[in-house]
C-alpha cells in the first residue's frame, strides 16, 4: 500500500488533491502532462523528506479550471496552495511539463526554492533538438514513445480499450491544449531562466523520444550552475525506468 495520504484543498475555487508522505524537509513534485506514471516512484524520497505531490488543475484527481490558459496561471495557483500548506522554503522537483512549470516557478520565486531538480523538462525552444509535438501524435502511439522498456509502463495501462481511461487522457490533453496549442514554446520563459540561482540538477533519459537528451546541455546554457545526470537506456519517463535516477535526485537533495 502507498504510504501517501490524500488531502483535498480548495484553491481559489479549484479542487486540488495533494498526496503527502514522509517527514523532514519538504520536497514538492510537479507531475507531467499525463498522470499515468503515478508517484509511487517517489517513495524512496519519503525516508528522508516530506514528499508533497499535488495534482495540477485539469489533471488526475484535481478539478478543472477552464480559465487556466497560460502556465503562469499555474504559478499563481501554486503560490496559493503553498500558502495553504504553509510551505515557505522547499525543494522542487518537476517532470516534463511539470519541469517546465518548476523552472518557471523557480525563475520567478527563487528565494522559496532550496534546490531544484528538473527531470526531462519541457518548455525549452531548441530548434536543433526540438521536442516532439506530442499533441500531434495519435493517442495509441504515445505510450510506446514514453519509455525504452515498454514493460515498465504496460502494467499501468488498461489491458483492452477502456473508455474511461481514454476520456481521462483526453481531459488531460485538453488541459495541455488550453496552455500550449497555439504556442508550444514561449521565448519569454527562456529569457528569465538565468534567475535560477539555487543548486539545480537536470536529469534525462539517454534515449528520450519525446524531448531529446541533447536539450540537457541547452538548459545548462541558461542555468550555468546546473549539474546534468544522464541515464543511458532510459526514455522520457526516466524516473520509472531507472531507480538510479530517483536515487540521484535523493542524493542531490542531500
Amino acid at each position, binding site marked *: 500500500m502507498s504510504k501517501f495520504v490524500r488531502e483535498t484543498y480548495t484553491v481559489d475555487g479549484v479542487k486540488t488533491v495533494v498526496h503527502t508522505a514522509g517527514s523532514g524537509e519538504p520536497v514538492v513534485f510537479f507531475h507531467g502532462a499525463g498522470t499515468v506514471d503515478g508517484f509511487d516512484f517517489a517513495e524512496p524520497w519519503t525516508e528522508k523528506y516530506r514528499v508533497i505531490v499535488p495534482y495540477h488543475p485539469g489533471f488526475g484527481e484535481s478539478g478543472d479550471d477552464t480559465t487556466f*490558459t497560460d502556465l503562469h496561471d499555474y504559478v499563481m495557483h501554486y503560490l496559493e496552495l503553498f500558502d495553504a500548506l504553509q510551505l515557505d522554503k522547499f525543494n522542487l522537483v518537476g517532470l516534463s511539463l511539470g519541469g517546465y512549470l518548476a523552472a518557471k516557478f523557480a525563475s520567478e520565486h527563487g528565494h522559496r526554492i532550496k534546490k531544484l531538480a528538473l527531470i526531462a523538462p519541457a518548455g525549452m525552444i531548441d530548434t536543433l533538438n526540438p521536442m516532439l509535438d506530442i*499533441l*500531434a501524435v*495519435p*493517442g495509441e502511439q504515445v505510450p510506446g514513445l514514453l519509455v525504452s522498456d515498454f514493460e515498465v509502463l504496460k502494467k499501468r495501462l488498461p489491458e483492452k480499450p477502456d*473508455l474511461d481511461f*481514454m*476520456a481521462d487522457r*483526453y*481531459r488531460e*490533453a*485538453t488541459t*495541455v*491544449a*488550453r496552455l500550449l*496549442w*497555439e504556442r508550444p514554446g514561449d521565448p519569454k520563459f527562456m529569457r528569465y531562466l538565468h534567475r535560477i540561482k539555487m543548486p539545480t540538477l537536470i536529469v534525462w533519459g539517454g534515449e528520450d523520444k519525446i524531448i531529446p537528451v541533447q536539450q540537457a546541455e541547452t538548459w545548462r546554457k541558461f542555468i550555468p550552475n546546473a549539474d546534468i545526470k544522464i541515464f543511458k537506456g532510459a526514455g522520457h519517463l526516466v524516473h520509472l525506468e531507472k531507480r538510479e535516477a530517483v536515487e540521484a535526485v535523493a542524493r542531490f537533495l542531500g
Partner: protein
Amino acid sequence: MSGALRFNSMHFMPYVYLPDNHKDYKSLWVSFPNKFYDPEKGHELYNRYLGELVMADRLGFDAIVINEHHNTVYSMMATPNLIAAALVPQTQNARICVWGTPPNFMQPNRLAEEYAILDVMSKGRLEIALPLGTGMEYWSNSVNPATARERFKESLKIMLQAWTEDGPTTHYGQFYTYRFLNPWPRPYQKPHPPCYVVGTGSPETIEIAAELGFGYASVFVTQQRARELNENLRQRAAHYGHTLRPDQLPLLTFVYVAETQERAEQEYIVHLQRFFEDYARTSPQFLAPPGYLSIDQLKTRAAMADKMHGGFDFQAISKSFFIAVGTPDKVANQIGEWSQWMKTNHINCVTHVADMPHWKTVKNLTLFAEEVMPRLRSRVQQPALRAAAE
C-alpha cells in the same frame, strides 16, 4: 414561408483522382499528402462542378449549397466564398447557400464583409451556415480547439453586431478587439441573410442556435437523431422566445434518381460506398482534437463509433440515414414522408458524391428536377406540413 417545399442541390466538390495506394492512408484528411493534388485535374474539376451547380439553378432547384473543408480530397472548397462569388453572376434564381465558413478561421469582421459582399452582389440571394468546423479543421488551421466554442460564440456576436447595428461600434472581448466595427458594405437582406448553425447536434451548438433563433442544418446524423435534434431545437428555441419555421430545419438527404430501382442502385451505390469509406475516412485523433469535445460527448461518440464497425452495407445505411435512391416515385414518396416526419419543408439534396461522373450527376439533377420535384409540389399543403408551418 408557406408549406411549399424547397429543394437545394448540395455539392462537396471532391478531388476524385485518388492514388492507387490511398487505402494505405488511415485518413484522407489533415495529413493526406498534397503531392497527390494535380492542379490541371483540379482545374477541370472546378469547371465541371461549377457547371453542375449552375445547372441546378437552371433546372429549378431553389438553392445551391456549398461548404468549407481543409486539407482533404473530400472538398476542394477551402474558401467557399470564392466559389460563391463565381456562382453569383452565373446563376439567376437559386439562393446561394454558403454552409459555410467556420467563423473561427477568419477575422469575424472580414467574414461579415465577405458575406455582405456576396449578398449585395447576388441581390439578396445569400444564405449562411455557421459551423464550428469539424475536428479535422482544427488540425489544419491555427486555432485552439480547446477554446473553439467560446471563440465561436464571440465571432457570431461580432458578425451580428456588424450587420445589425449602425457603425461604427466597438467590441472588446476575450479573443477580438474592434475599436471601429463599421464594415462596408452591409448585407442586402435585412437584418441579415438567413443564418443556420450547422453541426452534428452536440448540445452546445444546439443551444447557440436556439438562443439566436437561427436554423440548424444537421449533417451526417441518423434519421432518429435528426428528428430528436429538431424537436430538441424547437423546444430550446421556444425557451428563448423564438418560434422556428419549418424551413429553418433543413433535412439533409442523399438522392439518386434513375429509370428503375435496379438501375439507380447499380449506378449510385459504388459512389456512395466510396464517399463513406474513402472520402470521409479519417482518424479518431483528427475527429476529436483535444478540447474540441466535452468529455461526455467524447464518450458518447466513441461508444457510437464502436457500434459502427463493419463494412459498408447499403441496405443498413439506407435505413439509418436519409438516403433516397430509386425511381422518381420512390424518391418522391420517401422525401414526402420524411419531410412530414421531420416537420420541415426544406430538403437539402446531396446530388453528387465521391467520384460520381458528370453524366450521372446531370442525369440525377435532371430527373430530380423534372420528375421528383413536380410529384412533391403537386402534393402542396400536406396537412401535417401546413400545421407545422402555422
